[in-house]
Each structure stands twice: as structure tokens, then as C-alpha cells.
């Protein structure tokens, strides 16, 4: 049952991206509508999968890298459904759809443990720490998507010969604000997540904390430089893409370290 939900979610994201791409190519793109529908349906299917997996695990379904990736993409789509319409970022859905589709395919085809992983000991602080940390990564992921869109639109403007996509992408100032707010949201949520981790009460892995802190410091640095006007919006966009790439690459390492440490979180 849960495999069906996951396959359906992946299919919806692919359909969402493919139809947008096709519509853009044919000049028939209508902002919002079908794209939001496919994202909402994909989100509903993912929620179904995570609900069933949570019942099987008797805990938040983030006990393996496979589950973490699904939870991460679920967070990203959830944030898109909240942030996208608010910012009128019509094409954000298409950019998000392809990104979450690729992550889901990686989760499904990569040699990962995909079965349920019930936890014997439950600690609410640990649950909160892990869940908030991944939601924060979801916000950073969405900031990276907005960052990529910013860089694409900025390139179009600088080229002085804009292509068709230019007319469908939002203004760079809107993308910059979305990027900034999503990074800010991620920093706040990750900080709360790390503070919740301090309340777990058992010793934690140094490297895992170190990587999480580095991610937090890097994003905090971007916000600080932005606040004191030492960094241009273009560099904010590039930095949010770069730091998220780093965070994504280190995600398997954190998971591996968690397993080595005897904890799945």
C-alpha cells in the first residue's frame, strides 16, 4: 500500500514537471492551476506513505536515509504549497517538481534499506529534533530552488536577449525575497531542532553535530551578510544553492554516523 502511495507521488511530480515543460515549449503555459494540482496530489500521496510508515515504525518516519529523503521532499512540497501561491511564484512548482522527483527516484532506486525500521525506545525530544531538522532542510531546499530560479532569471536579464522562460519566471526581487525568507525560516527551525537535540539526554555524535552546526553557521552567515548589505542578491542565491548542495551531500554521512553511533537519528 505505502509503495503505491510513493509511486503515485513520484508519478504526480513527474507529470507536473513534464506538463509544465511541454506547456512552456508550446507557449501555452498557464501559471498555477494544473501544476499546483499535481503537487498537491503528490503531497497527499506522500503524506499517505509517511502516515503508514509512521504507524509501522511507531515513530516519526525518519529512521533511515530512504525515509529521510522522502520526509525531506515532503517538507519541500509542503513549503511550496504554502510559499508558492503567497509569492505568486508560478514556476516554482515546476522547479520543485523536478527536484523532488529526482530525490524520490534516488531514494527508490539507490541501494538503501527501504523497509520499516521500528524504534524500541521513544524519546519525544529526539523525535522533535530529527523532524524539525529535516523540515529545516526542506526550507533550505526550497531556498535553493528559488536561488536557481533567481540565477536563471538574472542570466536572462544580463544576456539582454531573454528566452521564452523569462516571461514566465517571477521578478528577481520576488525570488530574492522568497530565498531570503526560506533561508531565515530554515535557520529558525534548525536552531529549534538543534536545541531540542540538546534535551535528548543521551550523548550525541560529535561529527553529526559539527556538520549540522556548520550548515547552520553557513546559512546564518548568509543572512548576516545580507542584513549588513555586504552581499548582493545574486551571491545570496548562489550561496543558498551551494550550501544546500553541501547539506545534501553530507546528509548520507550524517545518517551513516548516526547508525555508527547506535542511533538512527
Amino acid at each position: 500500500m505505502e509503495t503505491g502511495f510513493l509511486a503515485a507521488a513520484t508519478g504526480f511530480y513527474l507529470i507536473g514537471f513534464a506538463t509544465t515543460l511541454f506547456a512552456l515549449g508550446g507557449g501555452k503555459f498557464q501559471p498555477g492551476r494544473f501544476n499546483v494540482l499535481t503537487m498537491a496530489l503528490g503531497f497527499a500521496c506522500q503524506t499517505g506513505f509517511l502516515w503508514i510508515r509512521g504507524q509501522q515504525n511507531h515513530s516519526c518516519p525518519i529512521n533511515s536515509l530512504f525515509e529521510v529523503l522522502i520526509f525531506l521532499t515532503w517538507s519541500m512540497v509542503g513549503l511550496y504549497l504554502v510559499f508558492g501561491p503567497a509569492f505568486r511564484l508560478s514556476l516554482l512548482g515546476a522547479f520543485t517538481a523536478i527536484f523532488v522527483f529526482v530525490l524520490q527516484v534516488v531514494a527508490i532506486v539507490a541501494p538503501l534499506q527501504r523497509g520499516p525500521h521500528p524504534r524500541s525506545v521513544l524519546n519525544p525530544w529526539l523525535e522533535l529534533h530529527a523532524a524539525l531538522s529535516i523540515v529545516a532542510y526542506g526550507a533550505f531546499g526550497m531556498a535553493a530552488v528559488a536561488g536557481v530560479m533567481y540565477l536563471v532569471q538574472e542570466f536572462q536579464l544580463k544576456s539582454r536577449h531573454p528566452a521564452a522562460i523569462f516571461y514566465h519566471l517571477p521578478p528577481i526581487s520576488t525570488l530574492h525575497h522568497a530565498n531570503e525568507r526560506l533561508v531565515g525560516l530554515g535557520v529558525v527551525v534548525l536552531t529549534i531542532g538543534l536545541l531540542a537535540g540538546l534535551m535528548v539526554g543521551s550523548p550525541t555524535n560529535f561529527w553529526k553535530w559539527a556538520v549540522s552546526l556548520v550548515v547552520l553557521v553557513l546559512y546564518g552567515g548568509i543572512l548576516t551578510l545580507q542584513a549588513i548589505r555586504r552581499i548582493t542578491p545574486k551571491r545570496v542565491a548562489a550561496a543558498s544553492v551551494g550550501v544546500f548542495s553541501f547539506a545534501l551531500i553530507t546528509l548520507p554521512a550524517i545518517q551513516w554516523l548516526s547508525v555508527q553511533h547506535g542511533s538512527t537519528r
Partner: protein
Amino acid sequence: MNIVCAGISHHVADVALREKFAVSNGALPEFLRELRRIDGLNEAVVVSTCNRVEYYAASICPVRTFDGLRDVVRAHTGIADAPMYQHDCPSSIRHLFRVACGLDSMVVGETEILGQVKTAYSAAQEHGATSRNLNRLFQQTFRVAKRVRSETQITRGPVSVGAVAVELAGKIFGDLGDRKVMILGAGETSERTARSLQSRGVRSMIVSNRTFDRAAALAKEIGGMAIHFDHWENAFSDVDILISSTAAPHPILTPQRLEPLMALRGPRPLFIIDLAVPRDADPAIERMDGVYLYDMDSLQRIAGDSLALRQKEVVRCEAMINEHVHEFVAWLRRGHRGPAGAEAAWAG
């Protein structure tokens, strides 16, 4: 029942002639009454814009209707040999669909005409000049126009220098309401561009010119503020859009001059529209982060690309229009034969 159309447009007459045909809102009720007295004519709509004056009618006898239309127009304008065109069914239906879709406009794909056709239809409806046939025709017209606009790229992209500038400003800043514009050099093109930006909500304008009086005159006209040319750099830190069209023989906007000014502005982007020939802006400034420089060539190229794309889309639009023409003609024929068909409606 037939749908007929006659009229005069920018294709066949210059503005001096077209303006004689214009039907004002005040004169419309009487004009419609005159049209409805024409033998065989049951319903009428008059579309009167700056580029066209067209009469659409539902008639049971097109030949007598065309003659009557010419008589009414002659009486109204005093012109006997006006180069009026006329279309009988189904060409008249196709013509209306093409007009509403912007295919017959001076700038292909312009969208203002659809609003004007809607207004013309509403006015005729209000004065009781339409019934079953024209009501159906105009409703179908609005559906065709909506479909053509949403399914093709006929309205895509700006097609004039001013419109390109507005589009680019929108893609940089989003809402233009709070943006400040500085005009360096009070020329005609910069004034037109500034007015385009004003039409999209820009409220704050600063004008600077070597001759202060000219700056002051333009500032007064567009509701801005004039400053002396020697002081434009002092006001630069607040500016978001710079329109430059001075007659300076060398670039006045160079990286060396802009870098310290940009540092004062923080990370806010700057959109420079260089309309001067020779150019006011050194092309090297486009390498600066946050500076978007467009000169006359690049603006015209974008406008040209948009126009070329629209022209390419015309074939697709015509195909869609043909589908709807066939559909409407089929409806018209069904209605004509039907027992409770159009005849009953015409009686009223």
C-alpha cells in the same frame, strides 16, 4: 439570417478620414436607431476605436443592408466615396473574431481591442440593438479571443521600446509603485519611456538636464522633480531606474563613476535604460553585480523578437478562428431552420 459587417480601419484610411467616422458615446443611441431603420437589418453593433469604425449587423437581406449602411454613413460623415470594406457571412464572422483577437490591429496581438469590442457590444445591448444572433456572435467572439490568448503566444512579449522597458523593470523590481526613476537628458524618447513606466505605477520621477529649464518643463509635465545636471549624482542613491538620453559625446556612466555610487545604494538592483546615441553608458558597467543595462539596440531587438513571434503565431490563431467560424455558421443555419428560431426573436 446573415451576419454582415462594413467599416473603415487603419488598413484603408488614415486618421484624418477615420476620425470623421468616429461615433461618440453621446451619438451612439441615435446612430443605432438609424441603423435599425435600414431595410432587412434586425440587430446592430458599432465598434468605434481610434483605429477602426465598424458596423456589425444581423440582416435578412445583406445587399439592402449594405446599401442602407452606406446611406447612413454618408449622411453621418458627409463623405460619399469612403473606402469602406464590407463582409458578408461567413467572412464577417471571421473578421470580427480576427479583430477581437488583435490579428487585425496595427500592432498584432494587442489586447486593448478586446476590451473595446466588449464595450461596444455592451453599449449596443444596453440600447436594445442586439438580440439572439448578435448576442450569440459576440459571446462566441469573447470565447474565441480568450482561447486564442491563452493557447497561443499572440500576446506574448512587449513590442515597443517603452513596453520593453516596462516589462524589464517589472521583471527586476516586481511592483513598480515605490520605485524611483531618474531621467538624464530631457528628450522625447526618454519622456515616452518615463510615461510608460508611469502607466505601470511609478510615481517618483527626477529629471536632470544640462539646460535646467528644459528639465523643469518636463518635470512639470510628468509630475516629477527637476534637479541641476551637476547634482544628479547626489540623488542617485535613491534611484532604481535610470533613463539616460543626453547628447554627451562620451559615456557619462562608467564603472569608475558608478562603483562608489553603487556602494551607497546597498544591494538594490539598478536598471539603466540608455537611449542615447552615442551611448551614455560604458558597456563595461553591465559586468557590475546588480546593474542591468539596456541600450536602444537591445530594447529594439526584444521588441522585434516579440513581434516576429506574434507574426509566427498568426497561423495557429487563424486555424482556431476557422474552427469557431464553422461552429457559428452551423449554429446560424440550425437557428434559421428551427421552428422557434431566429424569426421569432427578430419580430421583437
